[in-house]
């Protein structure tokens, strides 16, 4: 048989996407990982192997910042998993109730924060929580809880949690929508069969709907994980590149930005920045692999 001729139209169809994607995404990704193995001595690039990673993990000056950022990042993620996703699921469960009126209205309104930029969200909350303006303290006063008020964004022990909750406020629309979509695909017959067996209301949710939407909960978990471990914008917009007070809101994204771009007196170091990017890449990769091989394949999918 003859060698099949090259079908040029396939090449033409694929070329633009593959070229842009390879040149601007995949190549820089690997180039960044490669740069992490170099350092700069007298303005020339020198190969140093894993030295940058050793510095990052063990040199006290760097490692303290790195583990701080990593720990903060895990807390940031945990708050999202424990607050954002349950609220999102609860809202979706309410919205998908068949006899609920105005569902579309609620849905659109609750999604509005998600479309706003981090700059708007960060500053808006900064103003609202500001002790100078006094909206938050006077509202707490109205319900008799004024003593609870503190300048949350300015206190080391509260700032990170406050920012995480602001981010939850902004993004709760995403799990809500995805779970809502999953709940809509559950066929009526299954729910009716449950009703005949006396399973209604809340127990129908826990015993029938929740097991059926587990795959979607898996997806929102991994989306939350990837999103949180490359978060940057909200912290930068509200606390600046120094992630104050005293680095208490520093996460990997802001740490990488400061390191490779420089700030104030510190010069930017692209090689250490690449090393941090390498660490972020590894963390995200591990998370995605746990999801793909550990969770997704074991999850029982029901034929519906």
């Amino acid at each position, binding site marked *: 048989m003859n060698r099949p001729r090259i079908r040029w139209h*396939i090449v033409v169809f694929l070329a*633009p996407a593959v070229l842009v994607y390879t040149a601007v*995404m995949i190549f*820089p990704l690997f180039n960044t990982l490669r740069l992490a193995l170099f350092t700069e001595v007298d303005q020339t690039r020198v190969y140093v192997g894993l030295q940058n990673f050793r510095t990052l993990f063990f040199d006290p000056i760097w490692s303290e910042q790195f583990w701080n950022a990593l720990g903060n990042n895990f807390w940031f993620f945990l708050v999202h998993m424990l607050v954002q996703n349950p609220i999102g699921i609860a809202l979706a469960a309410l919205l998908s109730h068949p006899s609920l009126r105005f569902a579309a209205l609620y849905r659109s309104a609750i999604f509005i924060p998600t479309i706003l930029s981090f700059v708007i969200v960060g500053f808006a909350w900064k103003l609202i929580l500001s002790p100078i303006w006094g909206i938050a303290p006077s509202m707490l006063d109205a319900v008799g809880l004024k003593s609870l008020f503190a300048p949350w964004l300015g206190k080391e022990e509260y700032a990170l949690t406050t920012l995480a909750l602001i981010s939850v406020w902004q993004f709760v629309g995403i799990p809500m929508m995805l779970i809502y979509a999953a709940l809509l695909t559950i066929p009526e017959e299954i729910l009716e069969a449950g009703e005949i067996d006396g399973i209604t209301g809340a127990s129908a949710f826990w015993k029938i709907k929740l097991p059926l939407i587990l795959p979607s909960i898996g997806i929102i978990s991994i989306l939350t994980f990837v999103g949180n471990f490359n978060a940057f*914008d909200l912290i930068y917009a509200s606390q600046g590149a120094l992630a104050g007070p005293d680095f208490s809101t520093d996460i990997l994204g802001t740490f990488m930005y400061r390191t490779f771009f420089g700030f104030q007196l510190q010069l930017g170091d692209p090689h250490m920045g690449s090393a941090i990017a390498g660490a972020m*890449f590894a963390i995200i990769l591990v998370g995605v692999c746990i999801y793909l091989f550990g969770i997704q394949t074991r999850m029982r999918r029901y034929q519906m």
Partner: protein
Amino acid sequence: MNKARRNPFNTVAMHGALILYTLIALFPVFVILINSFKSRRAIFREPLALPNADSFSMIGYETVMKQGDFFLYFQNSMIVTVASLSFILLFGAMAAYALSEYQFKGNLIMGLYLALGIMIPIRIGTVAILEMMVATGLVNTLWALILVYTAQGLPLAVFILSEFMRQVSDDLKNAGRIDGLSEYTIFFRLVLPLVRPAMATVAVFNMIPIWNDLWFPLILAPAEETKTLTLGSQVFIGQFVTDWNAVLSALSMAILPVLILYVIFSRQLIRGITSGAVK
């Protein structure tokens, strides 16, 4: 509908919970918008009151108009968003068509290769992207942003669009081939119009993250003439941090275009998400 699922008490409780959460979601936006139309004294005296004849003031907007180049920023954001979306849709649809329509060696590998980028954020490669943009002289141009956003949007676009293109009937395409249409004509004239709803979904999905991104404008195009609206408002607010009128007005001006777009596209967006495009 049977009775077990319709209990008046439950209905009230459900509406109560949803109204409460809707208020939480809208309250900050509402506070910012109403206070941007008030005089400085009124902002502090009664932050929750609506502007009235006495407290109404446009002083904040006047400062923003005088000091900030918001029209330029807005224009930059528009150019970047529209250009990136056009490239994502055109290139994404072409690649999706190649992958879903033709059997060729490496089809599966190519599909997996393009899908890699769905899970791995492009920000990880920032150091090398900046280096490349500096080397090619694209730094501080809108092209740098357009290229990055195009690369970022392509993986999901190819994935979603190829799912939809598999549903386009083969008979239609084969009829075109019998009539002697070229593969290109079949793609542009027959297939593209049929997947328009999916293209709209992809566009709406990509629009919000591109418009709102702060990271790449900050790193690749921080020059005054290439600032996007998001970066521009960030810098402006940082400089005017004590001028509350100006800050509130700048925030409102950044909110309004997105809000208007959302009102126009929200049905498309919600239908896109709920149709299971992101399974």
